């Protein structure tokens, strides 16, 4: 399945929140929808889920208009909420049947996910008696009922401890393997990087980057190299290069210096310079930016 989001605009009381938001998601790949707080992630997802009507733009699934209730869609809203005074199993069965499952199917599905999230002991407890993290797991379980074809998770990792985050990551990986169409939003880049194939970066209601994560990394990393020396420490080396080598821009992170070749300078030219200057190479390799770097760079550029 191919979900296309095309030119979505949305305003609230005259203030435009989304500007021509467009991206595509294919099934079997997880799409990370990234942005800072207030960037427009939740608004985009809500318009996609038809909670809000978009002012303009279309959502297409395999070329046809996408109407969420016509498909098996699992949705975890950003505003978490379930019935606090209702037994967990009961309400999960209720939500599943509302989406079209028979009572038997609903029960099987609800029990499976309760078990999967290690909460079988509490299935007949009222939701409000659970800890916040466990309530969060029930919320996620709710979005996975009925074997959905499309799973949309708004900030699924917020509020989860590392152990539960790992359980959720495993679940998402499993969904991808099963060929589901998965969209999830996050501002926690480290979680996303591990299993995200595609990313869409949104800032101030505009998509500033969208595509395959590997390609994006390669593109941004092109013409940049990592360099580490055994006879200079990082600061000394940076200073040395700045004064002695032309046509480069030097930056650094914790791991090494990051050198970008400018004005047509090639990697070979740079290597010659290094050898000439008798710098003992400890590390000389391609630079591949982390998602966090991309995020900071891109959002930073946009702000500049």
């Amino acid at each position, binding site marked *: 399945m191919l979900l296309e989001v095309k030119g979505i605009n949305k305003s609230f009381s005259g203030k435009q929140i989304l500007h021509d938001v467009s991206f595509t998601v294919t099934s079997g790949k997880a799409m990370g929808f990234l942005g800072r707080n207030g960037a427009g992630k939740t608004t985009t997802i809500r318009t996609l889920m*038809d*909670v809000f*009507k978009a002012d303009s733009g279309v959502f297409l699934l395999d070329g046809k208009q996408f109407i969420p*209730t016509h498909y098996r869609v699992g949705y975890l809203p950003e505003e978490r909420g*379930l019935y606090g*005074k209702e037994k967990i199993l009961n309400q999960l069965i209720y939500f599943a049947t*509302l989406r079209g499952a028979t009572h038997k199917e609903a029960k099987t599905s609800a029990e499976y996910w309760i078990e999967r999230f290690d909460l079988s002991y509490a299935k007949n407890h009222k939701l409000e008696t659970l800890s916040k993290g466990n309530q969060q797991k029930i919320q996620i379980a709710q979005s996975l009922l009925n074997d959905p074809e499309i799973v949309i998770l708004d900030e699924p990792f917020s509020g989860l401890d590392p152990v539960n985050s790992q359980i959720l990551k495993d679940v998402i990986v499993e969904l991808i393997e099963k060929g589901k169409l998965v969209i999830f939003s996050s501002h926690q880049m480290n979680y996303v990087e591990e299993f995200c194939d595609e990313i869409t970066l949104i800032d101030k209601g505009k998509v500033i980057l969208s595509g395959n994560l590997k390609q994006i990394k390669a593109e941004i990393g092109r013409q940049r190299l990592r360099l580490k020396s055994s006879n200079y420490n990082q600061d000394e080396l940076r200073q040395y290069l700045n004064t002695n080598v032309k046509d480069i821009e030097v930056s650094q992170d914790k791991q090494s210096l990051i050198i970008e070749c400018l004005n047509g300078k090639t990697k070979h030219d740079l290597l010659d310079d290094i050898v000439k200057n008798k710098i003992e190479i400890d590390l000389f390799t391609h630079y591949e930016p982390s998602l966090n770097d991309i995020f900071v760079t891109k959002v930073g550029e946009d702000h500049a």
Partner: protein
Amino acid sequence: MHNVFKVFKFELLSILNKKSVQVTTLIMCVVVLLATSIPTVMEMFSNDESSDPDNEVGMNMDDLGFMSKSDLVSIESLTIYFGDDLNVYTDEKALRDDVVNGVINNGYIIEDTQTIRSIVQNKDMYSSTDQMMISVLQRIQRDKSFVELGIDPMVVDTLSNTPITLHEEVLGKDAQSSFLISYILMFAVYMLVIMYGSFVSTSVAREKDNRTMEILITSTQPSALIIGKVLANAIGGLAQFSVILAAGFIGYFINQSNYPEFISQMLFTGLSWDSVAIFLIFTAIGYLLYLFLYASLGSLVSKVEDVGTSVTPITLLFMVAYLIASVGIQAPTNIFVKIGSYVPFTAILAMPIRYFLTSVPLIELLISMTLMILTSLGLAFLSIKIYRLGSLSYGNKLGFIKALKLIFAKDNIDL
């Protein structure tokens, strides 16, 4: 429509499983059982008192003292009415002292043929002896005058007490016999609407409060949610009410023998099948009408604690309906009652009351019923729209008028 039933089932079970609902029902049943046993309890107490043999006028003559200062009214003439064992005083001071010391409760001094003085230490709220003294004195005067005119007072008594029999034939409705049952039913409907109305608005607002709404509206249609919810609360309310009503009937039948004859008569002679049918139809439609109204206003708020203030206008509206119906019980042909029986918001009580107490043409019933059904449908539509609109505006309480404007100004809400 299939989802309406799912929502209905879930909501109804959650209502019936609520501890607070179960406990309230139980308490109400006990209260009703106790209330219906009141005549039995009263009977038990009155039995104790009636064992005390009283004299012919039903007063304890030991508590009264008499003294006559008039030659025209002798103490002896009083004995005809009060019996022979009278406490007779010749000295006013002695009588006063006995009143002060509590030997007697009440002393009467006859000043002349037209004046009596009553001397009492503590006056009871209800004392019939004063009135009795006045009539006795009047009677003595009357008899004396008759004798002077040569007429036997006994003959006058016999003549003025000729028994007359009234055979009544009520062709329409008998307001007297329907009075009690009308009142009970009106009160029952009042309680039903007020109680379950606020249940509906709370249950609608709760989903916004606990943020379940976003999951719900992305899972099914808002119409299924609202209609299912309203029906569940309606049926839940009726179920609870029926249990309480059943307790009332059980209580009545257990204690039936101790009820005064006229109450039993008033309870059941006013009930005919057609009036029961009219009552049930109007109550059912009106009940749903009000529940949808409550659902609309419940959708306006996003916090459960705001429900109270939001639904106040409906409570006031329904109190107007109640007042009109109360007037109707006293004067069923009153013009306000007639108008009220057409206005959908007041017809729920006014029309059955009118039907119980007077004859209402079929066409009037049909017009009123149609108006109510149309209004209910309109309100159902409105409550669904507001519910959907409400999901878009978390936070501030949405005004009713503003919500209407938003709904009709721009059709940006897809149901």
